[in-house]
């Protein structure tokens, strides 16, 4: 057994034990809350940090794949050239076909 300490710092009167027992019993029967879980050691903090990292990662992925793409479309549309050929290049998901470019350029060339 490791070296035991003396207990002179502990008062030994009934009011002290009554008060301590009341406090301890109340805390024990109380439903555990998140703060209790976090204060119970380092493991919950590590778990909470890992959870927060995972949530941030998922959020970042979702934003980059949905909202990010949406913003890209807005930027592409607003920065696209005004002529039909330029718009076809800028706003299309796939490169335009040669025929499409020729038709667009002929249409623009007409008065």
């Amino acid at each position, binding site marked *: *057994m490791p070296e*035991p300490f003396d207990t*002179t710092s*502990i008062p030994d009167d009934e009011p002290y034990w009554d008060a301590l027992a*009341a406090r301890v019993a109340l805390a*024990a029967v109380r439903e555990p809350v998140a703060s209790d879980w976090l204060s119970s050691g380092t493991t919950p903090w590590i778990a909470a940090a890992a959870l927060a990292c995972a949530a941030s990662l998922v959020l970042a992925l979702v934003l980059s794949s949905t909202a990010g793409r949406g913003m890209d479309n807005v930027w592409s549309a607003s920065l696209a050239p005004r002529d039909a050929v330029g718009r076809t290049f800028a706003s299309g998901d796939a490169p335009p076909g040669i025929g499409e470019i020729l038709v667009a350029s002929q249409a623009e060339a007409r008065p």
Partner: protein
Amino acid sequence: MASDDRSDSELIARSASGDDTAFGVLVRRHIRAATLLAAQMTGDRDEAEDVAQNAFTAVHRRLSEFDHARPFPAWLFGIVRHIAERVRARNARRMRLWHRWGTRSDDLASTPRPDVHLDAARELEVVYHAMRALSPMQRACFELVAVRNVTPADAAAMHGISESTVRQHVFRARRALRAAVGDES
């Protein structure tokens, strides 16, 4: 303390069925021994109270696991010892860190606690000196039984040793202290 004739086993059964008052009686019955044991293991009043609280919280969460064939104090003190050991290990890690960072932990350890009133009487000094010369378990048992009036049976359950061993420790401690005081006078 209001007396309650119900056994620990009955109180646990009631507590397990949601009777918080019964649990309060159980806590009041054992809080002193649990806190004293925690204080002997941690050396700090606040930590001892925290250990006792965590132990009773653990008891409350595991009421259904209690083996009614066994005495409740043995179960409770086992939990107290386990939690207090973790506190000791954490404190030891902190001390090592302080050492590493150059803090003079010797100074910290030797700083007198403000809540400890040291009696200047010579005889008391002699007794304290003699107490420090006792083996750890002799001192622990002597303090519980002779100073705190804990029964040898409870002291045995608290430290997980036999009652006869407790009596032996107390006997040897008394003899050593008597000799120390006798030599001095």
